[in-house]
């Protein structure tokens, strides 16, 4: 059975695989998921980086990293998987502003990241290894998922060349980013995370408030991409002539 786990360059392999196998073949090519995992509250996504197995893992993982609970919506509801997908597919994922010359040597913790992987490669390698070695994360009960993530955070198990703690830390960082970045980047849906903490967002003029102590600033937050009607535009609409 052909799986999505084969090492194909992502920009070629996935699409060609679908074309070659056809729709019916795609159904057999995907890992079988229990019905309960498919009923997750995931918003409909068009992933451009993640294949289906990766997406399944990411959605399940971020849903535990920042869960929906009594405090409010979590990372899944906020569109964090979409954010991570677009980041990994973009310049940051491809290694912009990352010094990528060798030789690569392991270093001390104070010396920081020394792996040869771009963020995209790191995620791809680690999730592939995870899905191979510990398949079915998405099918575990939440408590078991938490224990799994906890182990991921603490161990240094090699995941396709990525120590699991490095992968975990990277995943947690992009999850928090996606939760709190401007919604123009595809996460922080409806600015709900900002509303939860009371952060006002992109438009910011507080000259008249800064010396009025202890006020409750409850005006709705604003995105840098919102228009006069409060609608946030992820896509740029050209002005009609």
């Amino acid at each position, binding site marked *: 059975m052909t799986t999505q786990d084969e090492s194909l360059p992502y920009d070629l392999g996935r699409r060609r695989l679908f074309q070659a196998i056809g729709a019916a073949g795609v159904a057999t090519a995907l890992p079988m998921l229990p019905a309960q995992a498919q009923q997750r509250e995931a918003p409909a996504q068009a992933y451009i980086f993640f294949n289906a197995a990766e997406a399944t893992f990411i959605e399940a993982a971020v849903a535990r990293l920042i869960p929906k609970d009594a405090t409010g919506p979590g990372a899944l509801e906020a569109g964090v998987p979409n954010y991570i997908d677009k980041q990994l597919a973009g310049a*940051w994922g491809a290694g912009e502003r990352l010094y990528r010359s060798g030789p690569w040597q392991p270093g001390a913790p104070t010396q920081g990241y020394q792996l040869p992987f771009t963020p995209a490669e*790191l995620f791809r390698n680690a999730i592939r290894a995870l899905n191979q070695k510990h398949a079915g994360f998405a099918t575990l009960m939440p408590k078991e998922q938490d224990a799994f993530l906890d182990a991921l955070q603490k161990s240094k198990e090699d995941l396709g060349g990525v120590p699991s703690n490095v992968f975990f830390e990277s995943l947690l960082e992009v999850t928090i980013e996606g939760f709190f970045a401007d919604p123009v980047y595809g996460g922080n849906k409806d600015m709900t995370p900002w509303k939860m903490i009371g952060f006002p967002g992109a438009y910011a*003029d507080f000259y008249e408030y800064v010396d009025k102590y202890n006020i409750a600033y409850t005006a709705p937050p604003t995105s840098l991409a919102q228009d006069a009607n409060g609608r946030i535009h992820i896509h740029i609409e050209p002005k009609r002539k």
Partner: protein
Amino acid sequence: MKLLFLLLLLPLSAVGQPLLVQGCAGCHGAQGEGNASEGAPRIAGQPQAYLERQLAAFADGRRENGVMTPIARQLTPEQRTALSTYYSDLRARAGKSSPPAAANARGRALATRGDRALNVQACQSCHGPGGTGFGNVNPYLAGLDRRYLEMALGEWKSGSRKTDPSQQMNQIASNLGDADIKALAAYFASQPLPQPATTATQKPPRIGAPDERTRPGTATTPRAGTGVTGGEPSGSQGPGGSGTK
């Protein structure tokens, strides 16, 4: 009209809000939509603190207007609060206004980008997306009357309007020539009015317990805290680009 308004004010304690509003409506319209021919701007849906400040300013001279000055001087602070709250809660709706002005590239550029040579920043940074206002102090400009906006910028420029403690408006207006003032006024006049329930200025929640202490050292301190626990600075081991610490 002015005399009628003043007569309505006389039995102050017995007169409830609606009668005061009738006085305002004479010039500012039944729904606070303004009356361009009277030079009375649209006030419906403007932030409450902004409106209140204008009334106070007319009373104490920070703004000067032959019609508004005597009216404002007759109002008590409580009445100013009540009136500004009433009009802030109204929804801005289309009403009589000057003929729609053509949107213009220069006005749009100044509003969204500013002008380097003139030392002028984009209006939207304080006045919100599309000039729909920000917070409880920065008014919406979208859909206001073009001539009123020109007059307002002129007042900022001449210094006769002193209602901006940051002096940004005075600085900005003094950097703008007459043609740019006209372009900006025309641009904002042509923008759609803020829509109900979707913008920051529509029914803005009261910002704060109004607690206008500005003198340092007068802040209340909550009860004394408890123990000191140590924490460790930490750092990222991932491919980063996050610098979350």
